[in-house]
């Protein structure tokens, strides 16, 4: 089906084959799941999903969690602070549970490992029953074609009561949408991506501020850091100078 009003689609020269764009239905999903692994258009979900709704697939909660913790770093600076220092990892066996306190967050992942087809994007959403308990599972819900891995879930309890989470429970639903073009290169399932094939939640991989801002033309000298304000204090200057001396640097007293 070609949508009216979309000029790019209306231009037939740019479209080699007419593609149906829209949400995949149960039948479409099952057809994709039947395809061979090597076909870029195959959808893979393992363990095989038990709950396929008319237009979505239920996904369960995995066993690994990254629980935020207090730490000595005063703040998180993207690309500079080791994100692992912000969390403690927890493994919750099947049958056991994790208590998520009110207004707290935790990184989790789906129990299912998925591989999206080369012409399908996905969106992961909180199951409506869970949403009614004020649990949200995702703030970056979009999944690119050919992505593979267990999906990292940013679970937040925005309610006023602690909530118990059991690994294995169906907490998320995956909605799949046909893209306008197939992105497969030379019919291969070649993939790019920072997060390739995770089976448990993985912390953020971010560029350092200078690197991230240089694309916008902001010079290195103009980038400031949260700790700059401390440099005016003699006590802090002495601390930094001593630390550098301990590491073998020659530093004159401030």
């Amino acid at each position, binding site marked *: 089906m070609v949508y009216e009003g979309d000029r790019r689609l209306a231009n037939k020269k740019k479209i080699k084959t007419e593609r149906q764009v829209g949400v995949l239905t149960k039948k479409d999903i099952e057809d994709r*799941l*039947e395809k061979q692994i090597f076909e870029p258009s195959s959808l893979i979900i*393992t363990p095989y999903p038990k709950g396929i709704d008319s237009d979505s697939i239920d996904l369960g909660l995995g066993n690994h969690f990254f629980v935020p913790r207090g730490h000595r770093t005063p703040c998180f600076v993207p690309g500079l602070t080791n994100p692992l220092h912000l969390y403690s990892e927890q*493994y919750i*066996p099947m049958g056991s549970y994790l208590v998520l306190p009110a207004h707290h967050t935790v990184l989790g992942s789906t129990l299912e*490992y998925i591989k999206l087809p080369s012409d399908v994007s996905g969106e992961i959403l909180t199951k409506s029953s869970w949403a009614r308990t004020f649990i949200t599972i995702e703030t970056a819900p979009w999944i690119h074609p050919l992505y593979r891995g267990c999906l990292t879930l940013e679970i937040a309890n925005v309610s006023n009561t602690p909530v118990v989470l059991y690994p*294995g429970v169906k907490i998320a639903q995956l909605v799949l949408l046909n893209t306008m073009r197939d992105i497969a290169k030379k019919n291969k399932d070649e*993939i*790019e991506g920072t997060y390739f094939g995770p089976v448990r939640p993985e912390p953020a991989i971010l560029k350092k501020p200078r690197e991230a801002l240089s694309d916008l033309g902001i010079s290195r000298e103009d980038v400031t850091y949260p700790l700059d304000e401390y440099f005016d204090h003699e006590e802090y200057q002495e601390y930094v100078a001593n630390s550098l001396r301990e590491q073998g640097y020659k530093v004159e007293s401030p």
Partner: protein
Amino acid sequence: MRHQAVLHNYTAAYKLVSSLKEIISKSRADNSYPKYSDQFLLFCQRTADDTLRYLEKSGNPKTAKLDFDILISKLSAIRQGWELLHTFIKPVLDADSLKVPYSLIQFLSEHTGKLSVVKGTKIVIESNPELNYFQHRHTELIIAIKFLLILIGEPENLTERVKIKRLGFLGLPYSQSKSLFMNCLLYHEIGHFIAEEAGVFSTKIRKDTKGKLEPLFEEYTEWAGNIILVWMEELFADLVAVKLLGPAYTLAYMELYRSVIDLSSDQILEFDIDHPCAPLRFREQVKALKKDKWEQHIKLEQWERLKGVSRSKESAYKSSLILHINDPYMVKIWQGLIKFFCRPDIIKTVHDLADEFVEGRENPCEHFIKSAERIQECLEHGIVPSFAGKNGDMPHPTAIINGAMFFWLSGMDDLYQIVPSIHKEKVKDRVALEQRVEMWCMKAIEDWLIKRK
């Protein structure tokens, strides 16, 4: 005066046990443990409670009914029991769920527990500061615990006593929590566990072996017999590992060996006091693999890799100990020992014992044949190899481990092709991708375990 001394000793024991109880309780609150490790720790915690109650009640000789001598001897036995438990508790506490290959350990327990000779085995994992694997001998511990329970007179702990039956304590290096391939070596330790638990080298084998040694070693028979039996148990553990897991064990062992010494050097021909030399061990493992029909189902290059190290002649075998001994008589004795161990009847005895004690096992080769292609295909495309489609069976964990090991050793070229941002020539990139493959396989084992439940 004596009363004060007894009170003082009971107080010291109370301090020790309550400290252990506190450590266990806090660790269990902070971390999750593999199922049987947690059961063991819970048992220790409850036994600590019972012990503390006993010490409180009996520690005051004014109110206790027993006389001083009995009180002191009972206390001494209780202390001994807790001293022994002390050595087991710490390495188990260090091996929480995140520090062990959780799904592999769960499967290992289930796999071993199916063998009729050690039915219901429960594997407890210990964290080892050294870079090696070991089986912590448990017989003495079990006796000590039973004695301890009798001493503190806690009959309600009888059910707990049943739970601690068939506990196998296996140690793995603390750095190997995320490794799958290297941890295949745990199967060798399962062999040692079976040897101890089922009394494989019992009186009869001991007597037969020493009977054969006597005409050759005369007054050294007892000494020679002990060494031969240690070597036999090593070989037995290898064969059990191969029969339960398949070539993945042999290949993992080869990797470990390769990281320590040069496989082409003469060093591999040495027997030491605890181990026969590597070529002999590989040779016998290859024989066991052939018997299970692996040769027909794995690629030639992999088979050659397996056979490669086992090709040395027996006449080249030597003892690592005689390199430092100039006494020609002792050199002759050691060479005689090696020659005796290589006798076909001795080697056959070990093979027969391995066959007997893993009777009823499922041949891992049969599982491998069923799913080898699917596993290979999954890994080539960056997919967790539990994928089985709508109605298919998930591959058996032993098939996953063997398939993944072959895939890894073949270079993983197809996988590198689909992730062009990862460069095969860069060590850091290689590590990242190899770790991914290991994680996918552990996830696949986990999926299999969940499906089984």
